[in-house]
């Protein structure tokens, strides 16, 4: 089943949900929704991969199910598990009262984890399933996802196959700590979320921090861009620049200047070496932020 989605309209609605998406991201999400296929978002930490799922869920009024991946994630934690304690109690109770043995694999005893729960949407686009940081899971889990993403069904040996009536919107994110199998990537739309342009970053800052002065938002975005242009261990993502703008606001600054630059760096850079690099270049970064801001 496919439903056309107007990409520009989707972008507008994402904006209303507090998320600024560029052409590529809006297209990727729109295709995923329209063709009911998963989308894989890759990018450095802090560029807004997880937030994209949150915003998409808000757009469709869907509930967001999040599955955080880690090594050793197995079906019992990701898809379903049986409530063993309850099963044992049911057996004992049936014995004590000489009743017929209850069906031990009825719904009552089934614990629905995110993947199984995602198959239970009551309407189209009713559920957004976020499979976060898939690169942290191991090969075995990836192999299981192949089946899940192909059929949107889970086979439970005791119950048979449970299939989705309305397919969930599936978003996978990866930080690229390892390469994913191509078999998995082939089943997804793919988008790389890069660092934003200055204009887009200003837009994002103002959307997230409405009380932030336009001048400070522009200073922060330009300074963040200047920082990213330097050789840093960890170039700051959007999450960090939002933190930074918030910190500067708390410090009572209305423009970025040398007095607040140094002390507030800890909220945007997370390595001592990076902070040293930034301190050494404080003058030129502040100047770059303000000059262009004024121009």
């Amino acid at each position, binding site marked *: 089943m496919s439903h056309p989605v107007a990409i520009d309209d989707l972008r507008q609605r994402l904006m209303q949900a507090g998320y600024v998406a560029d052409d590529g991201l809006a297209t990727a999400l*729109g295709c995923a929704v329209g063709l009911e296929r998963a989308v894989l978002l890759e990018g450095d930490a802090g560029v807004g991969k997880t937030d994209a799922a949150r915003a998409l869920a808000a757009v469709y009024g869907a509930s967001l199910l999040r599955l955080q991946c880690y090594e050793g994630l197995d079906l019992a934690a990701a898809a379903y598990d049986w409530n063993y304690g309850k099963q044992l109690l049911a057996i004992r109770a049936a014995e004590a009262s000489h009743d017929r043995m209850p069906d031990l694999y009825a719904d009552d005893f089934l614990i629905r984890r995110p993947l199984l729960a995602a198959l239970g949407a009551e309407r189209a686009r009713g559920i957004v399933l976020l499979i976060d940081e898939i690169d942290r899971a191991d090969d075995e889990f990836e192999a299981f996802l192949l089946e899940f993403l192909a059929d949107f069904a889970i086979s439970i040996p005791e119950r048979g196959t449970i299939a989705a009536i309305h397919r969930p919107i599936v978003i996978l994110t990866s*930080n690229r700590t390892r390469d994913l199998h191509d078999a998995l990537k082939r*089943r997804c739309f793919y988008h790389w979320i890069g660092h934003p342009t200055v204009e887009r970053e200003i837009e994002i800052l103002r959307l997230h921090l409405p009380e932030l002065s336009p001048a400070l938002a522009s200073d922060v975005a330009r300074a963040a861009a200047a920082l990213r242009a330097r050789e840093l261990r960890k170039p700051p993502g959007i999450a960090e620049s939002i933190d930074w703008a918030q910190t500067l606001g708390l410090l009572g600054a209305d423009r970025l200047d040398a007095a607040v630059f140094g002390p507030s760096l800890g909220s945007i850079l997370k390595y001592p070496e990076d902070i040293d690099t930034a301190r050494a270049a404080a003058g030129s970064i502040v100047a770059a932020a303000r000059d262009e801001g004024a121009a």
Partner: protein
Amino acid sequence: MIDAAPAAAGFDRALRARGIAAGTRRTLTFAEVLRVLPPTTTRELYWRARVAMLPSIDDLDAFHAAFVEFWGALDDAGALHRLVRMVGEQRPPRDAPKREAIPPPPSDRAADERSAESAPTRWIVASREESLRDRPFEELDDSERAAMLRLIDRIRIAGEVRASRRRRVHAHGDRFDFRGTLRGAARTAGELLVRRATRRRTRLRPLIFLLDVSGSMAPFARALVQYARVTAIARPRVRAFAFATRLTDLGPWLKRASDEHLMAAIGAAVHDYGGGTRIGAALRSFNERYAQRGIARGGTVVVLSDGWERDDAGLLGREMARLRKLTRRIVWVNPHKRHAAYEPLARGMAAALPYLDAFLSGHSLRTLEAVADAIEGRTA
């Protein structure tokens, strides 16, 4: 309703000509996207093509080239017309550029000749194994080197394991298995007679080779590349990188049978031949692009280098400190160490020394076996 399959298939061919194997599934997806969400501008077409067909951000440059070639430049309105016309005429798209010729695989006959050549000499290899074991690699002639490479194939495959988070059923497991026990009880009329348990599985730790392939190190690098290759074929989680002036991932070629691509990749690391080695810079790009993302975490890194740093030795020291924090064990192989009077005078070597778990010469087969031990934390 338009049928976009020919357009998608043609674009797939154009991508393939540029070395991007998008595959049939992506092509079908792209065709469906064109059908369900027909683009109205070239820009829209571009993004639809990209989210459906681009396998990885690493392929972006080739993707751009193929897109421009096949559809026209981004702001060229003609591209859309081409799409519409193509779809209308239901005809395969214009000729995609020819693929690069792929060298034919060696024929059986050639293989026979090779084995015929090597067969009579096999006993010689066996008999001279002992004499080869202690000979430094740089003193070997061509036939000895070939024999040496075959002997490297027999060195023990090193691998250290750690407990995995995954569990499997085990008779003497340390955690009670509810599900297994309950299912077992079904066979005994609901009585819980057999206790089942699980135990943690083990998982191989990553093993990474960083090989200095500059002129003077070449014979030793060749031997370690061979060892890295044998290891990579035998066990998972092995990566190898070559560096001289810049770092190159030997990645996909490491496990292939043909030396040709592997040697080309190594050649790419020696950008500026004879220009000396920039160990610190190579380590920094390794740390930034690979180690920090997690490929080396909890693993062993084997560095082959003589420690002659062309640039600032301070950078090398800093990057070693960083690598130290990202890995479990660092083994440094320096062939000069075999000389009794050797002292780590090279500034780079002196800077790296405090961060090493093992410092070995690895200049001959026997010492290479010691490297295999050191990878697992055993000292000779």
